[in-house]
């Protein structure tokens, strides 16, 4: 799946775009290899300046002086531009049948074929510089490997949107109508797919307020006071000192600020094929297309500080995105950056049809598990519904994760030494998204039964799923965007959680 040998490829041709495609392609559907936009090397170079400055650090600046520092940065940036220029000359992509082929590499040539049936999601990113120049980066997510395997940076927005539409059309499960016209590249494509139905727009003010209600924002005044006091007492106001402090503070503050910037103008929509369109970002605008059957898990989180507002945020996991543990905040897994419970409920109902955030009963672990969870015991729970495995945990930051049976990869039962003393075990429901649904500290017999149930239900869901998929694509259009059935009595909206009567799994 990674690299294919294609000896007949017009790889070394300097001007492949100019060649008649039929002349040298063995397959009639093959089209000429296409280049990325000629501005790409410059953008890469400009982007690298920030990295270079960070690598050289403020310390170096104070040692060598501004002039030489700028010179070094400039020389390095020009080097990067030259390197990216060479790499740009060697990079190309084209679509062959139901595969996207990408050639790149400077010393080690790589010729990668991506089967489009395996496509998990497609994202169109526009960093600030790309926005200024009218370009965009197209990122394809496939399973395997910790990083995005196929970033195409950069294309013009129109090209990128057109390519995305084509890729998604080819990736659609229904074995496409006889190859949708090997589109000539110049054909104008609609930037936004037609028939797109907006679902949700998050209020920017809410995003701002929600990020002010984070521990980082609360600690900011303390941090500032501390720094000011320190400077006043020591009386050293050197440029390096201030610059370093500001950088360090920025590191702490970065997360909420970055969240605000990323979640700015967050919009959700559905296109006619039932795919989810997610758009967000201020400085770097991003627009993702996620086929609904690629959603692995949905997690709802109620942070402590958001409780007065009765807010929560929703996250979805897609196979192929780096998991949360990889540290960077790049994981673009938002489904709802901030919203109230009813919005979230409608959204979950839409993404996982038939799953009602209100009706997810869970049972807590047996009382003897309090040795392991002295405070949070009542907040932990797990339960099985018709379609999903539900688990919740967390005392201060409450979380709830929903794993559809059809997405289960494997089931594990793990029992540590203390759990063995207490006759408890933990059940994990693994998905390809990196996060596992977890039933903490269940009674041993119940754990076995739960594992068996999960395995059985996952199998049944898989069997149904393979039959239902084609139908679903046709049905999802209008039927799914309806509100979940209104509950008879409206309980407190803040959490539909552990206070509910236990249901036997």
């Amino acid at each position: 799946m990674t690299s294919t040998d294609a000896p007949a490829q017009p790889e070394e041709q300097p001007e492949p775009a100019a060649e008649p495609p039929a002349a040298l392609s063995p397959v009639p559907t093959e089209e000429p290899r296409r280049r990325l936009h000629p501005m790409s090397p410059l953008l890469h170079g400009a982007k690298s300046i920030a990295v270079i400055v960070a690598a050289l650090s403020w310390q170096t600046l104070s040692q060598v002086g501004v002039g030489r520092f700028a010179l070094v940065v400039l020389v390095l940036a020009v080097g990067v531009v030259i390197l990216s220029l060479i790499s740009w000359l060697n990079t190309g992509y084209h679509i062959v049948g139901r595969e996207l082929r990408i050639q790149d590499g400077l010393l080690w040539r790589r010729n990668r074929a991506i089967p489009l049936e395996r496509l998990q999601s497609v994202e169109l990113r526009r960093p600030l510089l790309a926005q200024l120049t009218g370009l965009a980066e197209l990122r394809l997510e496939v399973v395997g490997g910790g990083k995005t395997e196929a970033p195409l940076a950069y294309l013009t927005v129109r090209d990128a949107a057109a390519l995305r539409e084509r890729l998604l059309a080819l990736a659609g499960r229904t074995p496409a109508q006889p190859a949708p016209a090997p589109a000539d590249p110049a054909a104008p494509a609609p930037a936004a797919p037609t028939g797109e139905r907006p679902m949700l727009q998050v209020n920017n003010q809410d995003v701002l307020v929600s990020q002010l209600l984070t521990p980082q924002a609360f600690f900011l005044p303390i941090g500032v006071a501390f720094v000011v006091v320190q400077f006043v007492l020591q009386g050293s106001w050197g440029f390096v000192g201030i610059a370093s402090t500001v950088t360090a503070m920025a590191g702490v503050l970065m997360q909420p600020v970055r969240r605000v910037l990323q979640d700015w103008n967050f919009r959700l929509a559905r296109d006619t094929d039932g795919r989810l369109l997610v758009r967000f970002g201020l400085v770097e605008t991003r627009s993702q297309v996620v086929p609904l059957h690629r959603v692995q898990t949905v997690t709802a989180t109620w942070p402590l500080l958001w409780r007065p507002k009765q807010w929560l945020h929703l996250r979805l996991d897609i196979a192929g995105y780096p998991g949360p543990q990889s540290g960077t905040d790049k994981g673009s897994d938002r489904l709802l950056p901030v919203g109230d419970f009813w919005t979230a409920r409608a959204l979950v109902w839409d993404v996982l049809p038939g799953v009602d955030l209100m009706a997810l009963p869970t049972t807590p672990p047996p009382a003897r598990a309090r040795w392991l969870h002295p405070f949070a015991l009542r907040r932990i729970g797990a339960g099985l519904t018709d379609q999903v495995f539900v688990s919740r945990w967390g005392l201060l930051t409450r979380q709830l994760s929903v794993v559809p049976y059809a997405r289960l990869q494997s089931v594990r039962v793990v029992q540590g030494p203390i759990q063995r003393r207490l006759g408890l075990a933990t059940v994990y429901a693994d998905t390809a998204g990196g996060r596992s649904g977890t039933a903490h500290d269940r009674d041993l017999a119940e754990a076995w039964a739960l594992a068996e149930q999960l395995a059985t239900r996952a199998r049944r869901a898989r069997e149904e799923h393979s039959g239902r998929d084609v139908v679903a694509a046709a049905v999802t259009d209008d039927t799914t965007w309806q509100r979940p059935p209104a509950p008879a009595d409206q309980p407190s909206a803040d959490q539909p959680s552990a206070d509910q009567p236990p249901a036997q799994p």
Partner: protein
Amino acid sequence: MTESSVSPPDAHRVDPLEPWPDAVEWRPVSPKLITVELINRAIWVALLLAGLFVGWMYNDHELWLAGMGAVVLFAIWRSFITVRAVRAWGYAERDNDLLVRHGLVIRRLSIVPYARMQYVDVTAGPLERAFQLATVQLHTASAASDAKVPGLPPEEASRLRDRLTALGEDRAEGL
């Protein structure tokens, strides 16, 4: 496996190593794995002891000797555990999934459906080869999946591999 096993009849007589005793037939791994594991441990212990001994030569302090004693004691204790742990290791092929259980201190059981299989690894280190053993590992799209069966005789390993791939192709669903 049927639906009837949802509520186990007697919750108090559950053996942590024998879930569903009547429905699953566990197969053990080769007892030769005990020898392999012990030799493996012996090598590590020897290296550690050598390191501590060198330290003791240069710096005559009782702590080094105490460290060596601790290493030896720990190794002996672990060796007893190893014998039991290898006996506890088992796998079972059911109609739709592979079960693997292992571990004594931390007990783990994995249920991996054949349909979710991405690929199968068969590996054999030098020590394992000397004892005619191999390890079969089943990988799914989830990194957390944990289905590794060590200590299989080569013919059993290739049988398992072939069976897994055959079943995987049969029921392929991928993601």
